[in-house]
């Protein structure tokens, strides 16, 4: 059913701002352009900031999935190395 295939996953629910984006960015570094990263994050601040920060760096946000347990999966495609 998903129209994308996840290459790598990172869980940032164990850290708080600004380490949320730092941890996600370090994980993204390992990917090749065109690959897809799933970032599991807590509701609230990370959901506000992490997608915006990725967008500012030129990455493509594909989807934000509500896991209905207080966390979200952000699906990001790497466009910029």
């Amino acid at each position, binding site marked *: 059913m998903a129209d994308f295939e996840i290459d790598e996953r990172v869980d940032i629910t164990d850290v708080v701002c*600004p380490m949320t*984006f*730092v941890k996600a*960015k*370090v994980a993204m*570094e*390992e990917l090749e352009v065109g690959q897809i990263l799933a970032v599991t994050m807590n509701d609230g601040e990370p959901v506000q900031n992490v997608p915006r*920060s990725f967008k*500012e*760096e030129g990455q493509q946000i594909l989807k934000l999935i509500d896991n209905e347990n207080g966390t979200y999966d952000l699906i990001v495609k790497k466009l910029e190395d």
Partner: protein
Amino acid sequence: MAFTNEQMERYSRHIILQEVGVKGQKKLLNGKVLIIGAGGLGAPAAMYLAAAGVGTIGIVDADEVDLSNLQRQIIHGTADVGKAKVKSAKETMNAMNPDVTVNTYREFVTSENIMDLIKDYDFIIDGTDNFPAKFLINDACVMAKKPFSHAGIIRFKGQLMTYVPGEGPCYRCVFKNPPPKDAVPTCKQAGVIGAMGGVIGSLQAMEAIKYLIGVGDLLTGKLLTFDALKMEFHTVKLPKANGGCAVCGDHPTITELIDYEQIECDGK
């Protein structure tokens, strides 16, 4: 090389920056900077480079820490008086950041040792306090094709410029030769406001960091001056690299390093 959790946190404010990021921080960790002089300029430069995670930092200085140094040389403490400056500096840097390897050279630069000292480093910081050393560092860096940051501070004034081979004038293009003996006072005789080393030495660290990461514009072909009393910064555009320069010109007349006579200064 993957970051440890501790490194991720230590360098988080760098990693967040688009201009630095993971790649830039790795460049810093792989970078090698040599600081000549662990004094007013070298102290803050060494501390900021260590904090930034520049992986290998060399420090050259033959002196011992003197009580009169402590007003500006913030890498040394009162308990370090009498200790070799390179040792005292290394202790501070190791305490700040265990990621950094500090190489110490307890000597002054001379025509004999300088080529060997600079050869393994990516960028050189001139934090010396005398003209013979400044011309020696310039000539050696030109000959070895090494980029370096020149700086000088005295009283309430400071200046700096950056030399990158092939990208602008060298120090000798601009200043030709050391001034005659006694024409210019040393900072021992003239004094220097302590925070000036912090301002200018930090700018030298900034140039080294930008060079290692490869972002922004360096002070190549430019001289930055700072007047603390007027609180004015000026950036003066320098003439292009002088084809007639005795060391970096098309037909250099200086092909061997020169040890100019050190102007002796009474007292300490």
